[in-house]
């Protein structure tokens, strides 16, 4: 009789969708903390740094951070699966050099772009192959391909820098949207942003990415194609890096083997700052965008205030460390507060 009552009671059990109200879910997140910091920095910079408030600041900021923004999109997805791609900046260089070499050889520029993008996809596929099929750690693999792709880039072009590109294309890279101060390249980014936001947050594929990052085994047992997912992401990363290489070449009007050297660390720093866990499974694209912009605005404002690049480096480094350590610190604080009778046990252990 009692069981019957219990089961009726249970069958009318209702489930709320969420255990926290909407505003808490939206506002009390790691991403919002970064966005908040971004807003504060932007406001403080506008008020206190001479020259920061001009519209041209926005133009330069967008032009400067676009390659990082672009590469950060696939990097976010890769890092959410718990992997990493250190070779992106080298792919930027390689794609830039390929465009240079082909243009120099007289190939149509459109063809050069296509070849560069395909080469980027292949470079990503090589990374992906080594990580998923051969089963190597991505950190080691992409340290290797970081050297390899950069080496190919430098080797292909040697001493020269190709600087002669069709004006149509170089103008396109710097074109501003209808008389405003906003560079048109922002549109390219916005299109990709929509694609990646949908891919990560609104598709079954994206659900798989998070599952892989939180538990590779459980994802595999749930029918998520772990290897294929990672392979696709590495190919995407290579392709977007190559696209960033095209932009890089056009913006500076110069194809050089050493283009974008060291950019990988900036991208990863921004992604981690934006709330993506290097253990995988956590992070969202809006946080990453905020992370990129935060570093970009800080650098821009500090440069304007005649603060040298070294201080910008220190701030980037400290932000990075602080952002991961603060998480652990908060978790530690919470457990400390929650642990009952901590002192009593401390006494017991002293006695024993």
């Amino acid at each position, binding site marked *: 009789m009692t069981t019957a009552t219990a089961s009726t009671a249970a069958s009318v059990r209702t489930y709320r969708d969420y255990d926290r109200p909407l505003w808490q879910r939206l506002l009390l997140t790691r991403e919002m903390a970064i966005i908040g910091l971004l807003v504060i920095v932007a406001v403080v910079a506008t008020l206190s*740094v*001479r*020259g*920061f408030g*001009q519209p*041209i*600041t926005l133009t*330069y900021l967008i*032009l*400067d951070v676009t390659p990082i923004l672009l590469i950060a999109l696939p990097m976010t997805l890769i890092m959410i699966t718990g992997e990493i791609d250190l070779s992106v900046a080298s792919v930027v260089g390689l794609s830039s050099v390929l465009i240079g070499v082909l243009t120099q050889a007289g190939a149509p520029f459109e063809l050069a772009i296509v070849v560069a993008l395909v080469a980027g996809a292949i470079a990503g596929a090589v990374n992906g192959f080594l990580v998923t099929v051969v089963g190597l750690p991505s950190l080691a693999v992409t340290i290797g391909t970081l050297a390899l792709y950069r080496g190919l880039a430098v080797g292909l072009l*040697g*001493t*020269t*820098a190709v*600087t002669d590109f069709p004006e149509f294309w*170089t103008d396109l890279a*710097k074109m501003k949207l209808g008389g405003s101060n906003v560079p048109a390249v922002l549109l390219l980014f916005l299109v990709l942003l929509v694609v990646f936001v949908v891919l990560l947050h609104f598709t079954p594929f994206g659900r798989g990415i998070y599952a892989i990052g939180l538990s590779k085994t459980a994802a595999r047992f749930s029918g998520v194609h772990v290897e294929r997912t990672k392979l696709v992401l590495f190919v995407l990363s290579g392709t977007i890096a190559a696209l960033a290489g095209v932009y*890089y070449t056009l*913006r*500076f*009007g*110069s194809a*050089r*083997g*050493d*283009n*974008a*050297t060291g950019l990988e660390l900036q991208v990863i720093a921004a992604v981690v700052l934006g709330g993506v866990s290097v253990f995988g499974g956590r992070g969202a694209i809006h946080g990453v965008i905020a992370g990129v912009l935060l570093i970009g605005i800080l*650098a*821009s404002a500090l*440069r*304007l*205030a*005649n603060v*040298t*690049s*070294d201080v910008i480096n220190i701030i980037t480094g400290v932000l990075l460390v602080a952002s991961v350590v603060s998480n652990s610190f908060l978790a530690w604080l919470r457990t400390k507060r929650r642990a009952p009778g901590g002192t009593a046990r401390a006494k017991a252990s002293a006695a024993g």
Partner: protein
Amino acid sequence: GDSGSGGGEGGDSGNLAITFLPKNLGNPYFDTSSSGAKEAIGEFDGTFAEVGPAEATPDAQVSYINTLTQQGVGAIAVSANDPEAICDALNEARDAGVKVVTFDSDTNPDCRDLFINQADAEGIAKVQVDLIADQIGGAGEIAILSASANATNQNAWIEMMEEYLASDYPDITLVETVYGDDDDQTSFDKTAALLQTHPDLKGIISPTTVGIAAAARYLSTSEYKGKVALTGLGTPNQLREYVEDGTITAFALWNPADLGYLTAYAAKALIEGDITGAEGDTFDAGKLGEYTVGADGVVLLGDPFEFNADNIADFDF
């Protein structure tokens, strides 16, 4: 931000805020040129500033040019890491009313107002080839240790050197050109590699101050000391001990301090509207006297100077 407080908006003829943007910071050559610039700017009461990237890449220079544009400085004096890559940024600066003077390493002529040339390329190439030919007796294998592979000025000189070698010294063969990226360690290691790769090497030309110092340091402790000649462009302070110990017999350079000094005065003349950069314009350059703008907006500092054991004690830079 003291450079910003130097005057009103850019283009204003009273804004004597002149910012120097060398290829990279921490390069003694540019330290010297900046000291000359500072002296000049002090003389005419302008505001001197120096900014720059840690590594000699054009994309890093672009960010600084953009920032200077935003700050609305009176003039930018830049030594270009790439003739093309920083062009658009410079043109945007000029559109915003900032005067642009290149020194040491030029960009394309249409993205700056003036180029202050330390010495004409021909003269630089000639003096270095003559020096090495003299030191190795006019025949044998030589190599070049340059800065980065894309350095505009070095590449131009190397091209001239090749032509001059072919026409005047047929017995000298240039076996290899390597690039030390204006980095001590790289230049040092490249010197070692050169000597290994070419056992019959007679001489090395290093047309960059970082390169020649690193090469001298390697040579001075190696078995090749005194056997392989070394010359190029260097500063007396860096090379003094190698001239004294016989690693180097002679080398050349203009006075980088004078280069910076002249650049500063040229920037001032541009800002104040005394000149526009057209051929034939003349301007006053303080203690250096009067200079005339040549074709393509180039101002020539003078002939390179030859340093050797007899005169090196007279210089301190």
